[in-house]
């Protein structure tokens, strides 16, 4: 009986604190939430299923590139290796088997965590990835956060002030962003903010690297320098890491910023012409509310897709930026691997980036679903 014995009436909500009533209401809410989540879950599952053939295709392509078009034996041999020895190596590595079997071995090795040995880094590939991935992720996240945080407001500004000077300035900035070779931009940034500032005796930004390793000690815990410096309560290292992120982050994020700004501008312009905006105005809403409540969410839908796609550009850009700023991430490793014809490394890098890209697009799809009810329930 304890369940239904009344206690007090809440003055605010008017809910009598009936345990049973509360229980029932709670149940109803939970059920409703579950139903909503089920719809969302179905959507997520659908998306995941759609990604499977893509992942298989990605694996097939990397396999073809590394084992069919390239010559995997070359990794193990030198010019002087005798033909018999080459044959032996072939057999030892299963390279004389039919292709589908080799593909199967390839998948098995990948699944069992054997991604090969990186000659250029003198470490197993998985280990290289484990140590270098956090640096790349840190840089990319910094770049994309910067790009989104600046690109979306700029796009809105450009659209709402169409054909006035803020629009013109924004468009020039964005157009330059998509037309500029990212490596050249990075070099020019380095030239101005490192070299010229340094020459002029101004406080120059660092030339490269993640932190001033000559002065500061750093032992990776998670591998993310900023997080580690917070964990170890080291504000000096944190600031140092942040300062080191500025130039590469800006160089890398600029292209994404440009892409997001352009997309935001055009989708905002399109949305502002939609009938529902007229309806929102006809309600007597303030222009600010019309834009930020009614237009923004609709305009974000195509922009989010573009952010997902821009992630690919970001990974490409990371290769170039890391090379220039001596950033100890995957990109720099990959260029070194290429110069050394280090096929397992190149292969692993390509595969990893494709997985990250596919994953990023999955996340984008989910955000998309959250933004657009038509997709969610579709």
């Amino acid at each position, binding site marked *: 009986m304890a369940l239904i014995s009344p206690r007090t009436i809440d003055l605010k909500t008017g809910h009598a604190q009936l345990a049973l009533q509360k229980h029932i209401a709670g149940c109803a809410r939970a059920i409703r939430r579950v139903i909503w989540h089920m719809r969302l879950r179905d959507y997520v599952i659908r998306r995941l299923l759609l990604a499977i053939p893509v992942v298989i*295709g990605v694996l097939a392509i990397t396999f073809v590139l590394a084992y069919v*078009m390239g010559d995997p034996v070359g990794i193990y041999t030198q010019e002087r290796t005798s033909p018999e020895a080459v044959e032996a190596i072939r057999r030892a590595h299963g390279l004389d088997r039919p292709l589908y079997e080799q593909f199967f071995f390839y998948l098995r090795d990948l699944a069992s965590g054997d991604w090969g040995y990186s000659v250029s880094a003198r470490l197993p590939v998985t280990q290289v990835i484990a140590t270098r991935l956090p640096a790349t992720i840190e840089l990319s996240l910094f770049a994309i956060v910067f790009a989104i945080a600046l690109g979306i407001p700029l796009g809105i500004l450009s659209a709402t002030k169409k054909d006035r000077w803020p629009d013109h300035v924004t468009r020039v900035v964005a*157009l330059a962003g998509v037309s500029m*070779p990212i490596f050249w931009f990075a*070099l020019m940034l380095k030239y101005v903010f490192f070299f010229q500032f340094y020459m002029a005796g101004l406080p120059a930004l660092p030339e490269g690297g993640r932190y001033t390793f000559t002065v500061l000690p750093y032992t990776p815990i998670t591998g993310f320098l900023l997080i580690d410096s917070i964990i170890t309560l080291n504000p000096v290292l944190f600031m140092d890491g942040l300062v080191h992120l500025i130039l590469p982050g800006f160089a890398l994020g600029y292209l994404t910023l440009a892409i997001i700004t352009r997309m935001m501008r055009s989708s905002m312009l399109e949305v502002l012409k939609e009938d529902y905006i007229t309806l929102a105005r006809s309600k007597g809403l303030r222009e600010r509310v019309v834009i930020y409540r009614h237009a923004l969410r609709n305009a974000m839908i195509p922009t989010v897709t573009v952010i997902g796609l821009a992630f690919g550009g970001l990974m*490409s850009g990371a290769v170039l930026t890391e090379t220039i700023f001596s950033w100890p991430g995957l990109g720099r490793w990959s260029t070194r691997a290429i110069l050394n*014809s280090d096929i397992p490394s190149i292969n692993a890098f390509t595969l990893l980036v494709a997985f990250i*890209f596919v994953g990023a697009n999955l996340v984008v799809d989910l955000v998309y679903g959250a933004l657009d009810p038509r997709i969610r329930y579709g």
Partner: protein
Amino acid sequence: MTKMDTKQYSEEIEETSSSIKYFVYFILVLGFINVIAGFVNIIDALLLYDIGTINEIGLMGNIATGSIAAIVIGILLLPIGLGVRDLENWAFPWVLYANLLAILLFLVNGGFIVYIGLFNLFAIILLMTPQIRAFWWKLYMEDMGPRAKETRYTLYLIRKSPLVVAGIIIIAVYICLAIFAPYITPYGPTEREWYNFLQAPSPQHIWGTDQNGGDVFSMVIWATQVDLKIAISVVAVALVVGAFIGAAAGYFGGAVDEIVMRITDVFFAFPGLILAMAIVSALGARNLDNISIALMLVWWPTYARLVRGQVLIEREKLYVEAARSVGASDMRILAFHILPNTIQPVIVQATLDMGGVLLTAAGLSFIGFGAEAGSAEWGLMIAQGQNHFAQYWVTLFPGLAILFCALSFNLVGDGVRDILDPKLRRR
């Protein structure tokens, strides 16, 4: 208009009908010339391969672009010529399309077959002469109906848009620089004054010299040839291949469509530069040809998707139905309706991609995939100058060259896309 109308129409211009007869002869002969040129091109390429001037990839590229194009278009020209003879009105635009395609592919192919392209150019010129034009232009415009007006209006808008015009002018300047490089540049592409390395800009070397004593100004101009050629050939081949695949997918639908789309999905799962990196390293040798091939492999799915989507849209459109119900042949629907409508977004995309390919190629070459050290290529020049901070001119000028080239293509592509966008059009 129907075929009957065309016939009646032709009676009115009876007196010029001898010109059409010669035109038909010319097209038929041109077909044979193209077919033969295609075979000769194969033999030529095989010989060059034999003596080692070109490698397997060059051989394949030669056969894929020039030879197949010449043979296919040559064979295509025969029914087109017969169509012209019968005054079928679909045939005239096809003369234009086929020969334009031939010229484009011949240019990409390079070699002697470029000169065969002059015959194709002549065919287009003939097609545009008043005598021949009288047979088809008016009909074409009428059949396009409102779209002809739209096209004129589009051209008007393009002329009125200062940014697009500026972009076109810059592109034209770059093309001129590429063509007339030998007459503009004071130094050759590989000329070095090793004792004059890293000189600041001076009257002798207006943009200074690089670390090998190369004249930066001359090298930047010479590089225009190299980089533009990469961009044009990559976009042209990706466009043609992608368009064919996409059109097939859209036209056949069903399983073909599904397979093609899944394959493009896989290609889109890689960031462009990184897939290109993987392909180049799989190809082995590091040179500009391999960069081109890698980029073609990266870029074709874009066009496949675009064209597929367009074909699907056009197929559904009512007026195609209407045209079919009047008794129009498939060739005619293709020539008058689907192709002209599909081509607009494809051209916009191609223009934008020129910039993208340029940047990606320069990036690849910057990492060290491109031409051999010291040659005149923008990305490579930047890579080699990157550590000479005090000598900013070594990197600044090639970078600006890339920037303005990509910018001009983006300006044109962007502007034209906005102009063509029906949602933005009536402002």
